[in-house]
Protein backbone atom coordinates (compact mmCIF):
# COMPACT_ATOMS: atom_id res chain seq x y z
CA UNK A 1 0.00 0.00 0.00
CA UNK A 2 3.08 2.23 -0.18
CA UNK A 3 1.76 5.25 -2.11
CA UNK A 4 3.96 7.03 -4.65
CA UNK A 5 3.70 10.76 -5.54
CA UNK A 6 2.81 13.66 -3.23
CA UNK A 7 -0.10 13.78 -0.83
CA UNK A 8 -2.49 15.57 -3.20
CA UNK A 9 -2.15 13.06 -6.00
CA UNK A 10 -2.17 10.20 -3.56
CA UNK A 11 -5.27 11.69 -2.04
CA UNK A 12 -6.82 12.21 -5.47
CA UNK A 13 -6.00 8.56 -6.22
CA UNK A 14 -7.68 7.53 -2.97
CA UNK A 15 -10.84 9.45 -3.85
CA UNK A 16 -10.92 8.25 -7.43
CA UNK A 17 -10.40 4.69 -6.33
CA UNK A 18 -13.09 4.85 -3.68
CA UNK A 19 -15.44 6.43 -6.20
CA UNK A 20 -14.83 3.68 -8.73
CA UNK A 21 -15.17 1.02 -6.05
CA UNK A 22 -18.51 2.48 -5.02
CA UNK A 23 -19.64 2.80 -8.64
CA UNK A 24 -18.71 -0.83 -9.25
CA UNK A 25 -20.28 -2.02 -6.02
CA UNK A 26 -23.46 -0.11 -6.78
CA UNK A 27 -23.70 -1.58 -10.29
CA UNK A 28 -23.10 -5.09 -8.97
CA UNK A 29 -25.74 -4.46 -6.31
CA UNK A 30 -28.24 -3.44 -8.99
CA UNK A 31 -27.52 -6.68 -10.84
CA UNK A 32 -27.94 -8.73 -7.70
CA UNK A 33 -31.21 -6.98 -6.91
CA UNK A 34 -32.47 -7.69 -10.43
CA UNK A 35 -31.68 -11.40 -10.04
CA UNK A 36 -33.35 -11.65 -6.64
CA UNK A 37 -36.35 -9.77 -7.95
CA UNK A 38 -36.82 -11.98 -10.98
CA UNK A 39 -36.50 -15.19 -8.98
CA UNK A 40 -38.92 -13.72 -6.48
CA UNK A 41 -41.55 -12.87 -9.03
CA UNK A 42 -41.09 -16.36 -10.47
CA UNK A 43 -42.62 -17.64 -7.25
CA UNK A 44 -45.88 -15.81 -7.88
CA UNK A 45 -48.86 -17.86 -9.04
CA UNK A 46 -48.79 -18.69 -12.74
CA UNK A 47 -51.57 -17.66 -15.11
CA UNK A 48 -53.41 -20.97 -14.76
CA UNK A 49 -53.49 -20.50 -11.01
CA UNK A 50 -55.04 -17.11 -11.59
CA UNK A 51 -57.70 -18.49 -13.94
CA UNK A 52 -61.13 -18.08 -12.41
CA UNK A 53 -59.48 -17.26 -9.10
CA UNK A 54 -61.58 -14.13 -9.03
CA UNK A 55 -64.94 -13.50 -10.61
CA UNK A 56 -67.98 -11.33 -10.19
CA UNK A 57 -71.53 -12.39 -9.46
CA UNK A 58 -74.59 -10.25 -10.16
CA UNK A 59 -77.03 -10.64 -7.25
CA UNK A 60 -79.95 -8.70 -8.75
CA UNK A 61 -81.64 -11.80 -10.24
CA UNK A 62 -81.92 -13.41 -6.80
CA UNK A 63 -85.34 -12.66 -5.29
CA UNK A 64 -85.72 -12.26 -1.57
CA UNK A 65 -86.01 -15.51 0.42
CA UNK A 66 -84.42 -17.53 -2.40
CA UNK A 67 -80.87 -18.56 -3.15
CA UNK A 68 -78.55 -19.70 -5.89
CA UNK A 69 -75.56 -22.02 -5.86
CA UNK A 70 -72.55 -21.73 -8.15
CA UNK A 71 -69.15 -23.39 -8.40
CA UNK A 72 -66.07 -21.41 -7.45
CA UNK A 73 -62.68 -23.16 -7.52
CA UNK A 74 -64.48 -26.49 -7.64
CA UNK A 75 -66.39 -25.82 -4.43
CA UNK A 76 -70.11 -25.07 -4.33
CA UNK A 77 -70.91 -21.55 -3.09
CA UNK A 78 -74.39 -20.61 -1.83
CA UNK A 79 -75.79 -17.09 -2.06
CA UNK A 80 -79.09 -16.46 -0.26
CA UNK A 81 -81.15 -13.27 -0.43
CA UNK A 82 -82.50 -12.87 3.11
CA UNK A 83 -85.73 -11.20 4.10
CA UNK A 84 -85.59 -8.60 6.87
CA UNK A 85 -87.51 -11.09 8.99
CA UNK A 86 -84.92 -13.79 8.51
CA UNK A 87 -82.12 -11.39 9.45
CA UNK A 88 -83.80 -10.30 12.66
CA UNK A 89 -84.60 -13.96 13.41
CA UNK A 90 -80.95 -15.03 13.31
CA UNK A 91 -79.93 -11.90 15.18
CA UNK A 92 -82.41 -12.85 17.90
CA UNK A 93 -80.71 -16.22 18.56
CA UNK A 94 -78.78 -16.07 21.86
CA UNK A 95 -75.06 -16.93 21.54
CA UNK A 96 -75.28 -19.73 24.10
CA UNK A 97 -77.61 -21.67 21.83
CA UNK A 98 -74.96 -21.86 19.13
CA UNK A 99 -72.61 -24.80 18.64
CA UNK A 100 -69.94 -22.61 17.04
CA UNK A 101 -70.75 -19.14 18.35
CA UNK A 102 -70.22 -16.31 15.88
CA UNK A 103 -72.13 -12.99 15.76
CA UNK A 104 -74.36 -12.45 12.73
CA UNK A 105 -72.53 -9.24 11.81
CA UNK A 106 -69.28 -11.23 11.46
CA UNK A 107 -70.94 -13.44 8.85
CA UNK A 108 -72.50 -10.72 6.70
CA UNK A 109 -70.97 -7.65 5.09
CA UNK A 110 -71.87 -4.36 6.77
CA UNK A 111 -74.52 -2.50 4.78
CA UNK A 112 -75.37 -5.60 2.76
CA UNK A 113 -76.95 -7.71 5.47
CA UNK A 114 -79.58 -8.98 3.02
CA UNK A 115 -77.06 -11.30 1.30
CA UNK A 116 -75.58 -14.38 2.94
CA UNK A 117 -72.66 -15.97 1.07
CA UNK A 118 -71.34 -19.35 2.28
CA UNK A 119 -69.38 -22.35 1.03
CA UNK A 120 -71.79 -25.22 0.47
CA UNK A 121 -69.71 -27.97 2.05
CA UNK A 122 -70.91 -29.56 5.26
CA UNK A 123 -68.17 -29.43 7.91
CA UNK A 124 -69.15 -32.86 9.18
CA UNK A 125 -68.30 -35.11 6.24
CA UNK A 126 -68.28 -32.84 3.26
CA UNK A 127 -71.74 -33.48 1.82
CA UNK A 128 -73.51 -30.62 0.03
CA UNK A 129 -76.40 -29.28 2.13
CA UNK A 130 -79.76 -28.52 0.50
CA UNK A 131 -82.02 -25.50 0.91
CA UNK A 132 -81.46 -23.29 -2.13
CA UNK A 133 -84.08 -24.65 -4.51
CA UNK A 134 -87.56 -23.54 -3.47
CA UNK A 135 -88.53 -27.22 -3.33
CA UNK A 136 -85.68 -28.05 -0.94
CA UNK A 137 -86.30 -28.62 2.75
CA UNK A 138 -84.43 -25.97 4.72
CA UNK A 139 -84.42 -27.73 8.03
CA UNK A 140 -85.74 -26.55 11.39
CA UNK A 141 -83.73 -23.28 11.30
CA UNK A 142 -84.86 -21.94 7.91
CA UNK A 143 -81.33 -22.21 6.52
CA UNK A 144 -79.77 -25.33 5.02
CA UNK A 145 -80.12 -28.98 5.87
CA UNK A 146 -77.42 -31.57 5.25
CA UNK A 147 -78.96 -34.64 3.64
CA UNK A 148 -76.24 -36.96 4.88
CA UNK A 149 -76.59 -36.92 8.65
CA UNK A 150 -79.01 -34.12 9.25
CA UNK A 151 -76.80 -31.25 10.31
CA UNK A 152 -78.98 -28.12 10.30
CA UNK A 153 -77.77 -24.57 9.63
CA UNK A 154 -79.48 -21.24 10.09
CA UNK A 155 -80.04 -18.57 7.46
CA UNK A 156 -76.46 -17.25 7.79
CA UNK A 157 -74.91 -20.73 7.73
CA UNK A 158 -74.27 -21.24 11.44
CA UNK A 159 -74.62 -24.85 12.53
CA UNK A 160 -77.56 -25.31 14.90
CA UNK A 161 -77.80 -29.10 15.03
CA UNK A 162 -75.04 -31.73 14.89
CA UNK A 163 -73.26 -33.87 13.88
CA UNK A 164 -71.37 -30.97 12.26
CA UNK A 165 -69.44 -28.93 14.83
CA UNK A 166 -68.40 -25.94 12.74
CA UNK A 167 -70.31 -23.29 10.79
CA UNK A 168 -70.34 -23.25 7.01
CA UNK A 169 -67.18 -21.54 5.71
CA UNK A 170 -67.40 -18.08 4.18
CA UNK A 171 -65.50 -17.58 0.92
CA UNK A 172 -63.41 -14.44 0.45
CA UNK A 173 -65.61 -11.85 -1.29
CA UNK A 174 -66.45 -8.17 -1.27
CA UNK A 175 -69.21 -5.97 -2.61
CA UNK A 176 -68.32 -3.91 -5.67
CA UNK A 177 -71.78 -2.42 -6.06
CA UNK A 178 -75.01 -3.04 -4.17
CA UNK A 179 -75.87 -5.98 -6.40
CA UNK A 180 -72.42 -7.10 -7.54
CA UNK A 181 -69.91 -9.12 -5.47
CA UNK A 182 -66.42 -10.17 -6.38
CA UNK A 183 -65.55 -13.69 -5.25
CA UNK A 184 -61.92 -14.41 -4.36
Amino acid sequence: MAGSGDMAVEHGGEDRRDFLKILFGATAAVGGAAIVWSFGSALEPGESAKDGAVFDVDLSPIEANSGISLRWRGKPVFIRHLTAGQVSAVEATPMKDLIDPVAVKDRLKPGHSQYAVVVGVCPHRGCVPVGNKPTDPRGPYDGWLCPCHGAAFDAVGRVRRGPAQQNLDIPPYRFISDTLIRLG
Partner: protein
Amino acid sequence: MRRLIFAAVAALALSGLARSASAQTRLPQEFSFQSPLGTYDKTDLQVGFAVYQANCASCHGLGLVHYRDLRHLGLAPQDIAAVLAKLNAEKSADPPGKAPLMARDTFRAPFPDDAAAAAKFHGAIPPDLSLIERGHKNGADYIYSLLMGYRAAPPDVTMLPGHYYNVAFPGLQTAMPPALKPGSVTLADGKKPSVQQMAHDVAAFLAWTANPTLDERKAVGLRIILFLIVLGIFGGLALRSGRRV
Protein backbone atom coordinates in the same frame (compact mmCIF):
# COMPACT_ATOMS: atom_id res chain seq x y z
CA MET B 1 -32.10 -32.14 34.53
CA ARG B 2 -33.28 -35.46 35.96
CA ARG B 3 -36.17 -33.57 37.51
CA LEU B 4 -36.95 -32.05 34.15
CA ILE B 5 -37.34 -35.44 32.51
CA PHE B 6 -39.46 -36.69 35.39
CA ALA B 7 -41.75 -33.71 35.04
CA ALA B 8 -42.12 -34.42 31.35
CA VAL B 9 -43.19 -37.99 32.03
CA ALA B 10 -45.75 -36.80 34.58
CA ALA B 11 -47.23 -34.31 32.15
CA LEU B 12 -47.44 -36.95 29.45
CA ALA B 13 -49.34 -39.24 31.80
CA LEU B 14 -51.73 -36.37 32.41
CA SER B 15 -52.15 -36.06 28.67
CA GLY B 16 -53.04 -39.75 28.51
CA LEU B 17 -55.96 -39.17 30.87
CA ALA B 18 -56.98 -36.16 28.83
CA ARG B 19 -57.20 -38.20 25.63
CA SER B 20 -59.18 -41.06 27.13
CA ALA B 21 -61.81 -38.44 27.94
CA SER B 22 -62.73 -38.05 24.26
CA ALA B 23 -64.18 -41.49 23.47
CA GLN B 24 -67.27 -42.60 21.55
CA THR B 25 -69.79 -45.39 22.05
CA ARG B 26 -67.57 -48.33 21.10
CA LEU B 27 -67.81 -52.07 21.53
CA PRO B 28 -64.11 -52.93 22.08
CA GLN B 29 -63.10 -56.20 20.49
CA GLU B 30 -60.28 -58.73 20.68
CA PHE B 31 -58.09 -58.59 17.58
CA SER B 32 -55.09 -60.87 17.18
CA PHE B 33 -52.96 -58.06 15.77
CA GLN B 34 -53.64 -55.52 18.50
CA SER B 35 -51.21 -56.92 21.07
CA PRO B 36 -47.61 -55.68 20.72
CA LEU B 37 -46.36 -58.95 19.26
CA GLY B 38 -49.65 -60.07 17.74
CA THR B 39 -49.95 -60.76 14.03
CA TYR B 40 -52.90 -61.12 11.69
CA ASP B 41 -54.95 -64.28 11.92
CA LYS B 42 -55.07 -65.39 8.29
CA THR B 43 -58.28 -67.34 8.70
CA ASP B 44 -59.96 -64.25 10.17
CA LEU B 45 -58.73 -62.23 7.19
CA GLN B 46 -59.99 -64.80 4.68
CA VAL B 47 -63.43 -64.84 6.26
CA GLY B 48 -63.27 -61.05 6.43
CA PHE B 49 -62.52 -60.89 2.73
CA ALA B 50 -65.43 -63.21 1.99
CA VAL B 51 -67.68 -60.99 4.08
CA TYR B 52 -66.41 -57.90 2.27
CA GLN B 53 -67.08 -59.46 -1.13
CA ALA B 54 -70.55 -60.61 -0.14
CA ASN B 55 -71.69 -57.57 1.86
CA CYS B 56 -69.54 -54.49 1.26
CA ALA B 57 -68.10 -54.71 -2.24
CA SER B 58 -71.40 -53.67 -3.76
CA CYS B 59 -70.96 -50.17 -2.31
CA HIS B 60 -67.34 -49.70 -1.20
CA GLY B 61 -64.17 -49.85 -3.23
CA LEU B 62 -60.69 -50.80 -2.04
CA GLY B 63 -58.65 -48.60 -4.34
CA LEU B 64 -55.29 -49.46 -2.79
CA VAL B 65 -55.67 -53.24 -2.82
CA HIS B 66 -54.89 -55.43 -5.83
CA TYR B 67 -56.53 -58.81 -6.28
CA ARG B 68 -53.05 -60.32 -6.40
CA ASP B 69 -52.47 -59.00 -2.86
CA LEU B 70 -54.97 -61.57 -1.62
CA ARG B 71 -52.18 -64.14 -1.69
CA HIS B 72 -50.93 -62.46 1.49
CA LEU B 73 -54.16 -63.72 3.10
CA GLY B 74 -53.11 -67.22 2.13
CA LEU B 75 -55.24 -67.48 -1.02
CA ALA B 76 -53.67 -69.68 -3.70
CA PRO B 77 -53.35 -68.34 -7.26
CA GLN B 78 -56.26 -70.48 -8.38
CA ASP B 79 -58.42 -69.13 -5.53
CA ILE B 80 -57.69 -65.61 -6.75
CA ALA B 81 -58.39 -66.68 -10.33
CA ALA B 82 -61.73 -68.02 -9.11
CA VAL B 83 -62.58 -64.70 -7.42
CA LEU B 84 -61.77 -62.86 -10.64
CA ALA B 85 -63.72 -65.31 -12.80
CA LYS B 86 -66.77 -64.76 -10.57
CA LEU B 87 -66.44 -60.98 -10.82
CA ASN B 88 -65.92 -61.02 -14.58
CA ALA B 89 -68.99 -63.23 -14.94
CA GLU B 90 -71.30 -60.62 -13.31
CA LYS B 91 -69.84 -57.49 -14.95
CA SER B 92 -73.05 -55.57 -14.39
CA ALA B 93 -71.82 -52.18 -13.25
CA ASP B 94 -69.16 -51.32 -15.80
CA PRO B 95 -69.53 -50.38 -19.48
CA PRO B 96 -69.44 -53.19 -22.07
CA GLY B 97 -66.15 -52.48 -23.86
CA LYS B 98 -64.20 -52.82 -20.60
CA ALA B 99 -61.28 -55.28 -20.25
CA PRO B 100 -61.82 -58.21 -17.84
CA LEU B 101 -60.38 -57.82 -14.34
CA MET B 102 -56.91 -59.28 -13.84
CA ALA B 103 -54.94 -60.16 -10.73
CA ARG B 104 -52.89 -57.00 -11.30
CA ASP B 105 -55.96 -54.73 -11.07
CA THR B 106 -57.09 -52.97 -7.92
CA PHE B 107 -60.46 -53.88 -6.42
CA ARG B 108 -63.22 -52.68 -8.69
CA ALA B 109 -64.93 -49.44 -7.72
CA PRO B 110 -68.66 -50.13 -7.27
CA PHE B 111 -69.85 -46.82 -8.73
CA PRO B 112 -68.77 -45.10 -11.96
CA ASP B 113 -68.39 -41.81 -10.06
CA ASP B 114 -69.25 -40.06 -6.79
CA ALA B 115 -72.33 -38.42 -8.28
CA ALA B 116 -73.87 -41.81 -9.04
CA ALA B 117 -73.17 -42.94 -5.47
CA ALA B 118 -74.48 -39.74 -3.91
CA ALA B 119 -77.66 -40.00 -5.95
CA LYS B 120 -78.22 -43.49 -4.58
CA PHE B 121 -77.67 -42.59 -0.92
CA HIS B 122 -79.32 -39.20 -0.47
CA GLY B 123 -76.05 -37.32 -0.92
CA ALA B 124 -73.87 -39.60 1.16
CA ILE B 125 -71.03 -41.39 -0.64
CA PRO B 126 -69.69 -44.76 0.48
CA PRO B 127 -66.02 -43.97 1.14
CA ASP B 128 -63.25 -46.14 -0.19
CA LEU B 129 -62.41 -48.53 2.65
CA SER B 130 -58.71 -49.15 1.96
CA LEU B 131 -57.57 -46.78 4.70
CA ILE B 132 -60.74 -46.31 6.73
CA GLU B 133 -59.30 -48.29 9.64
CA ARG B 134 -56.46 -45.79 9.98
CA GLY B 135 -58.97 -42.98 9.74
CA HIS B 136 -60.35 -43.62 13.21
CA LYS B 137 -58.70 -44.23 16.55
CA ASN B 138 -58.90 -48.00 17.15
CA GLY B 139 -60.34 -48.26 13.69
CA ALA B 140 -61.06 -51.97 13.83
CA ASP B 141 -63.17 -51.53 16.96
CA TYR B 142 -64.93 -48.64 15.26
CA ILE B 143 -65.81 -50.70 12.20
CA TYR B 144 -67.12 -53.53 14.34
CA SER B 145 -69.13 -51.10 16.42
CA LEU B 146 -70.52 -49.42 13.32
CA LEU B 147 -71.66 -52.68 11.79
CA MET B 148 -73.21 -53.84 15.07
CA GLY B 149 -74.46 -50.38 16.01
CA TYR B 150 -77.81 -50.33 14.24
CA ARG B 151 -80.76 -49.79 16.55
CA ALA B 152 -84.39 -48.81 16.31
CA ALA B 153 -84.41 -45.00 16.30
CA PRO B 154 -85.59 -43.67 19.70
CA PRO B 155 -88.89 -41.78 19.39
CA ASP B 156 -87.32 -38.35 20.08
CA VAL B 157 -85.01 -38.33 17.01
CA THR B 158 -86.51 -37.44 13.62
CA MET B 159 -84.84 -39.62 11.02
CA LEU B 160 -83.75 -38.35 7.63
CA PRO B 161 -85.22 -40.09 4.59
CA GLY B 162 -83.32 -43.28 3.75
CA HIS B 163 -81.20 -43.13 6.89
CA TYR B 164 -80.60 -45.64 9.65
CA TYR B 165 -80.06 -45.05 13.32
CA ASN B 166 -76.60 -46.20 14.40
CA VAL B 167 -75.19 -45.59 17.90
CA ALA B 168 -71.60 -45.88 16.72
CA PHE B 169 -71.85 -43.47 13.84
CA PRO B 170 -70.90 -39.88 14.57
CA GLY B 171 -74.22 -38.18 13.96
CA LEU B 172 -76.21 -41.30 14.83
CA GLN B 173 -77.90 -41.31 11.42
CA THR B 174 -76.08 -43.00 8.57
CA ALA B 175 -77.05 -43.45 4.97
CA MET B 176 -75.49 -46.89 5.08
CA PRO B 177 -78.07 -49.62 5.55
CA PRO B 178 -77.30 -52.50 7.90
CA ALA B 179 -74.99 -54.43 5.64
CA LEU B 180 -74.29 -57.78 7.23
CA LYS B 181 -76.76 -60.27 5.83
CA PRO B 182 -76.81 -63.36 8.07
CA GLY B 183 -75.76 -66.45 6.17
CA SER B 184 -74.33 -64.44 3.30
CA VAL B 185 -71.01 -66.24 3.75
CA THR B 186 -70.14 -69.92 4.03
CA LEU B 187 -66.90 -71.06 5.62
CA ALA B 188 -64.68 -73.82 4.29
CA ASP B 189 -66.18 -76.19 6.86
CA GLY B 190 -69.65 -75.35 5.54
CA LYS B 191 -70.61 -73.41 8.69
CA LYS B 192 -72.18 -69.98 8.42
CA PRO B 193 -70.45 -67.46 10.68
CA SER B 194 -72.49 -65.44 13.16
CA VAL B 195 -73.11 -61.78 12.40
CA GLN B 196 -70.76 -60.89 15.26
CA GLN B 197 -68.04 -62.99 13.71
CA MET B 198 -68.67 -61.48 10.29
CA ALA B 199 -68.36 -57.97 11.73
CA HIS B 200 -65.25 -58.96 13.65
CA ASP B 201 -63.55 -60.56 10.69
CA VAL B 202 -64.40 -57.87 8.15
CA ALA B 203 -63.02 -55.34 10.64
CA ALA B 204 -59.83 -57.39 10.81
CA PHE B 205 -59.76 -57.55 7.02
CA LEU B 206 -60.08 -53.78 6.74
CA ALA B 207 -57.33 -53.39 9.32
CA TRP B 208 -55.17 -55.48 7.02
CA THR B 209 -56.05 -53.40 3.95
CA ALA B 210 -55.01 -50.31 5.92
CA ASN B 211 -51.77 -51.82 7.30
CA PRO B 212 -50.79 -54.72 5.07
CA THR B 213 -47.17 -54.61 6.25
CA LEU B 214 -47.96 -54.88 9.97
CA ASP B 215 -46.67 -58.45 10.29
CA GLU B 216 -43.47 -57.73 8.40
CA ARG B 217 -42.97 -54.55 10.39
CA LYS B 218 -43.15 -56.35 13.73
CA ALA B 219 -40.90 -59.18 12.55
CA VAL B 220 -38.22 -56.90 11.15
CA GLY B 221 -38.56 -54.41 13.97
CA LEU B 222 -37.93 -57.08 16.60
CA ARG B 223 -34.79 -58.21 14.80
CA ILE B 224 -33.57 -54.62 14.77
CA ILE B 225 -34.25 -54.30 18.49
CA LEU B 226 -32.42 -57.53 19.28
CA PHE B 227 -29.50 -56.43 17.14
CA LEU B 228 -29.29 -53.11 18.97
CA ILE B 229 -29.19 -54.89 22.33
CA VAL B 230 -26.30 -57.07 21.16
CA LEU B 231 -24.53 -54.10 19.62
CA GLY B 232 -25.00 -52.14 22.81
CA ILE B 233 -23.49 -54.89 24.96
CA PHE B 234 -20.49 -55.50 22.70
CA GLY B 235 -19.94 -51.79 22.26
CA GLY B 236 -20.13 -51.21 25.98
CA LEU B 237 -17.59 -53.95 26.66
CA ALA B 238 -15.24 -52.80 23.92
CA LEU B 239 -15.28 -49.21 25.13
CA ARG B 240 -15.01 -50.05 28.81
CA SER B 241 -12.09 -52.40 28.20
CA GLY B 242 -10.63 -49.69 26.01
CA ARG B 243 -10.94 -47.22 28.88
CA ARG B 244 -9.69 -49.73 31.48
CA VAL B 245 -6.05 -49.63 30.38
